[in-house]
């Protein structure tokens, strides 16, 4: 008996929905196996991981706080990947946005007005977009692969942040800790709930909804889909590949920068060497898990946010390394890609004689 893949005549919309469900199930099963091999009770660990974060209001708030940046970056990347533009440097754009937006509280500390916050948000988005323009420019002007350049820029941005908070922007009264001054007043996002929920979550949700509408009902959304799936057809329709690259990097970079600013002006409240637990990379998984659809990204962002909080939970309760979070996230992307095969192909089992004729190159 032999197993072969057979191309479906039409992409299966049923599998498009089922594939993430399958992938999540497989991840949970594999996760249980990993916990078992580590000698930890698998069911307890899985419960702590995926259910426990949703059982108290306090931890639900934490999940939402983590989901905000993931959704914001994820929707931008979803549009990028749909257009076949590979921006994988969102982590760097996040850092650049945080740096740019932090100019207001650090350099203009006395300027207290609601406008200061608006300017900060705009500067954050602008910083991210400008940083993303580097790979976009190199791609459109010289034909340099955007994957490698956007990734290299992540390291550069993080080193720049490290230098800024240890050098020029270090808080002079901060006992020599590598931190900027703490942001105050209108330089912080409005907070509510137990003091963790902030305006950034609303921004993330609104952006996701707007992009959902844009991708569905607007010519730009159509353009993204055509250029991504059939570049030649797009060219005949007069859609410019170059403009698409700029658009995608501007959008995804801007949103990543905004997410970065929201992190430093929200939960963190100042600049420090590490401002993100790899949100920019995790958002890649979020985009794929969300079917490159802005609404799907909202759900995927929530799920991966649960994995962050759950990871902290098992570390505290069972003493399991918080690295499991990264393993879960990697496995999830892995399984989702695997299950996505079933959208375009169906699995067929061939018996003896069929297998012989089918297996040979004709």
């Amino acid at each position, binding site marked *: 008996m032999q197993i072969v*893949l057979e191309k479906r005549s039409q992409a299966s919309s049923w599998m498009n929905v089922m594939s993430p469900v399958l992938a999540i199930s497989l991840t949970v099963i594999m996760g249980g196996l990993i916990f078992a091999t580590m000698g930890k009770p698998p069911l307890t660990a899985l419960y702590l991981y995926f259910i426990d974060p949703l059982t108290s209001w306090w931890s639900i708030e934490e999940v939402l706080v983590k989901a905000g940046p993931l959704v914001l970056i994820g929707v931008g990347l979803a549009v990028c990947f749909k257009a076949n533009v590979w921006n994988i440097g969102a982590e760097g754009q996040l850092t650049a946005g945080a740096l740019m937006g932090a100019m207001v509280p650090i350099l203009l500390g006395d300027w207290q007005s609601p406008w200061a916050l608006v300017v900060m948000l705009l500067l954050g988005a602008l910083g991210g977009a400008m940083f993303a323009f580097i790979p976009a420019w190199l791609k459109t002007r010289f*034909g340099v692969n955007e994957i490698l350049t956007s990734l*290299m820029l992540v390291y550069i941005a993080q*080193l720049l942040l490290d230098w800024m908070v240890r050098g020029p922007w270090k808080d002079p009264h901060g006992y020599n800790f590598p931190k900027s001054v703490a942001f105050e007043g209108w330089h912080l996002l409005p907070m509510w709930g137990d003091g963790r929920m902030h305006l950034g979550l609303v921004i993330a949700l609104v952006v996701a909804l707007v992009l959902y509408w844009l991708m569905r009902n607007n010519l730009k959304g159509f353009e993204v889909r055509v250029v991504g799936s059939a570049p030649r057809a797009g060219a005949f329709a007069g859609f410019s590949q170059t403009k698409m690259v700029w658009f995608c990097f501007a959008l995804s970079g801007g949103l990543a920068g905004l997410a970065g600013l929201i992190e430093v002006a929200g939960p963190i409240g100042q600049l420090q060497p590490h401002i993100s637990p790899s949100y920019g990379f995790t958002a*890649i*998984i979020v985009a794929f898990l969300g079917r490159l659809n802005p609404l799907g990204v909202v759900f995927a962002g929530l799920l991966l946010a649960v994995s962050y909080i759950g990871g902290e939970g098992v570390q505290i309760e069972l003493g399991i390394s918080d690295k499991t979070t*990264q393993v879960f996230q990697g496995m999830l*992307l892995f399984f989702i*890609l695997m299950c996505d095969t079933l959208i375009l192909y169906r699995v067929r089992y061939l018996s003896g004689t069929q297998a012989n004729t089918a297996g040979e190159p*004709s």
Partner: protein
Amino acid sequence: MSAYEAIILTIITASTPLLLAAIGELVVERSGVLNLGIEGMMVMGAVCGFAAAHVSGSAWLGVIAAVMGGVAMSLLFALLTQTLITNQVATGLAITMLGLGLSGLIGSDFVGLPGVKLANVSIPWLTELPYVGRLVFGQDPLVYVSIGLTVGVAYGLKHTRWGLIIRAVGQSHSSAHALGYRVIAVRYACIAFGGATSGLAGGYLSLVYTPQWIENMTAGRGWIALALVVFSTWLPGRLAAGAYLFGGVWILGLYAQAMGLGIPSQLLSSLPYVATILALVVISTNRRLSVINTPASLGQGFVPDR
């Protein structure tokens, strides 16, 4: 040992992991597959190598474990991209994320423990030769392996039947398939070879370069190796030159830091990444050079039609 000898020795040690990882990826890309998972395979090689060497006390067992760690990750990549025809870019990213996570999990018990260093080669009389002895006859064994692999790949791709098949599969998988070559099997083999050298490159870091386990110790070297393959325009000789050039940049940064010239250390640490971008720009500007050797079906999945 004079100062210039010391500098050259450190440059070689910094370059060797880049060369090892890149030479494997060069073969993978020549067969038409783009594996972005080098960073993940490398870091798995590093942790497996360190763990095996620490537990057994033998650096050579560490080397073997490093290779196996890399191969295991690469076979996962092959299963997805070749058998299940997934998107190669996304799958490579998944391998990198999974590798970084898994290595951290495996390595969490090994942080701060003493490692086992692979001993340098020492040939009586020859190694003691003035000026050239240490450089030519006194390196660690993996340096010679990396050079041997480079020469072997250069010769193999150009002058052997196997090399011809690999290049044919990379140029046009449909034609190669029509000629009766087993495209997917060839690609599986190339991907596994790439995994082996990436694992070895990771092992080099944790067994030679800094014999200990540090989380994410590959520090983007896998990505630089990928850029090197593009920079080399898929030619092994140029790849080796590029790897040593980058090793040089890396060490230049470290030396400048040690001398304390008042340049921010972060600026010097960012040199290799900036240099990578510049190198990519330079090579991409020359369209003739960059296009002529690009494997025509690079990054495309292959489904045999029946």
